[in-house]
């Protein structure tokens, strides 16, 4: 088990990976990726029980689904640094003939990815299906999923939220990244989502909140608490408040960096704020 400092070092290194990946191809989504870095690092290095290697069925291990696929940079970096594929492959992000597509896919055979995502609102349904398969298989491992808050505007989520509670899918932990931003502005300006925790609660979920999703200790504590609440007849939701663009001062407090890459100067500035810890790819 890594200690908190080791996880924090990994967080900083992943941030560097994200920034360098999107800068290289002048495209991609750094904002949400930076905001969810602590979550991914904690999940893949401390929280999930994972087998060595990768197989699609994931029997006998926890599995994860990224519903808001546009934050692929953080997903790819954390998968690579967890050993799913060579970290040098991060160099191929969004390039022709790459397994690291703009949005994650199984189609190119990238280890660690179990479903395509990018068209929003579909991941929770897939996660529910995988959770039901685990129950049928007598596999007591868990299914985790991550969703953007803006993504909750897609109606399919509410079908899934209703199903999971109504059918006691209690081996599922769905986290909502409540960064309050989406492409066109603040979520509450574009289409108000309101009290996410309360909405899940009235649908019948067990809900907990992580007040600062960019504090690795809080994220770890929240995820562990969520695990302890599984198997009790309710699906578990974590409403995790994060700062889009976290770790880079000029990318925070705005939706501007949702889907925009930094210039050469901006990259240099951002990397200076996140000094190399574990070695760049």
């Amino acid at each position, binding site marked *: 088990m890594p200690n908190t400092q080791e996880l924090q070092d990994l967080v900083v290194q992943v941030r560097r990976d994200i920034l360098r990946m999107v800068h290289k191809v002048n495209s991609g989504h750094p904002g949400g990726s930076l905001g969810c870095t602590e979550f991914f690092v904690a999940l893949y290095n401390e929280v999930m029980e994972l087998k060595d290697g990768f197989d699609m069925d994931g029997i006998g291990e926890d599995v994860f689904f990224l519903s808001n696929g546009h934050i692929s940079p953080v997903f790819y970096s954390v998968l690579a640094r967890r050993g799913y594929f060579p970290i040098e492959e991060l160099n191929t992000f969004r390039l022709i003939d790459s397994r690291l597509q703009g949005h994650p896919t199984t189609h190119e055979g990238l280890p660690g990815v179990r479903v395509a995502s990018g068209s929003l609102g*579909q991941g929770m*349904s897939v996660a529910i299906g995988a959770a039901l*398969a685990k129950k049928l298989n007598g596999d007591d491992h868990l299914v985790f999923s991550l969703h953007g808050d803006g993504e909750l505007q897609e109606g*399919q989520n509410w079908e899934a939220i209703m*199903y999971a509670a109504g059918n006691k899918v209690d081996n599922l932990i769905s986290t909502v990244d409540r960064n309050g931003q989406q492409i066109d502005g603040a979520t509450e300006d574009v289409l108000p989502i309101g009290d996410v925790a309360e909405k899940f609660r009235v649908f019948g979920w067990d809900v907990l909140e992580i007040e600062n999703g960019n504090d690795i200790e809080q994220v770890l504590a929240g995820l562990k608490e969520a695990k302890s609440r599984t198997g009790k007849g309710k699906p578990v939701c974590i409403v995790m408040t994060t700062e889009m663009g976290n770790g880079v001062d000029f990318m925070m407090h705005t939706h501007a960096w949702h889907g925009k890459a930094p210039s050469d100067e901006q990259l240099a500035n951002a990397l200076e704020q996140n000094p190399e810890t574990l070695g760049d790819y």
Partner: protein
Amino acid sequence: MTKYTDQGKQDTRSGYGAGMTELGRTNPNVVALCADLVGSLKIETFIEENPERFFQVGIAEANMMGMAAGLTIGGKIPFASTFANFATGRVYDQIRQSIAYSDKNVKICASHSGLTLGEDGATHQILEDIGLMKMLPGMTVINPCDFNQTKAATIAIAEHHGPVYLRFGRPKVANFTPVDQKFEIGKALMLNEGTDVTIIATGHLVWQALLAAESLENQGISAEVINIHTIKPLDDKAILDSVKKTGCVVTAEEHNYLGGLGESVARVLASNHPAPQEFVATQDTFGESGTPEQLMEKYGLNNKAIEAAVLKVLKRK
């Protein structure tokens, strides 16, 4: 040639239900999902015998398709079923991303396809679903012709790894294929050998094609009838072998002429052996309420329409 006779009218959806019953007993990985249409899909026996392997999702088809994709992760073989309109058009992006692009082993099973669901009218009568599904890379598209073939197809697709769209219908129609006929995905079936014209039919139109061939024979016209139950992958060789012999073709389907079997056949011919073709299909229109027979008559989807198309195409040879 085998002379096909009507063994009694049955609905193809009941063939699906019978296939599911058998799969429930023989394949423990098969699971079923349904969106509030269990009775219409005839899967009561499967549910009664395998309650833990059935998921009632409610009126929420998008969630159903995503759940089906997820159930494959862990080795299940999900059969997600509802009406054809709600199994395709309503959830196209869910099928596209979570199932087809994600290479998931999901069987999308759609009843009430085409016009012949009848009185419910155009909101439920999808005539575009073959086109929608065949355009998805990796998707297999199957439209069996009767009860026996639908049952056989249901059982066969469980053994095929990959996404499948299985299309069937509501009305009771002639059940004429042998009960023990092997179902091979992608393999066309020669039902009647002929020399003057090839009739290539799918789904409910196959029986109508046989009726037409019989009538044409009495007029001295020798019609070859091919049952294309698999629209994708298409049996190019069977089509070309026949049309090279006859020199012209009529395609027949309960679907829009845009995007259906006819266009797939036209592509094969245009690329390999151009020949005159007539299309028995709906003419880029929505349906309406009526009995199945009235609708088939009005929209030109019966044996008489096929016969007329044959006479027309023969003049173009």
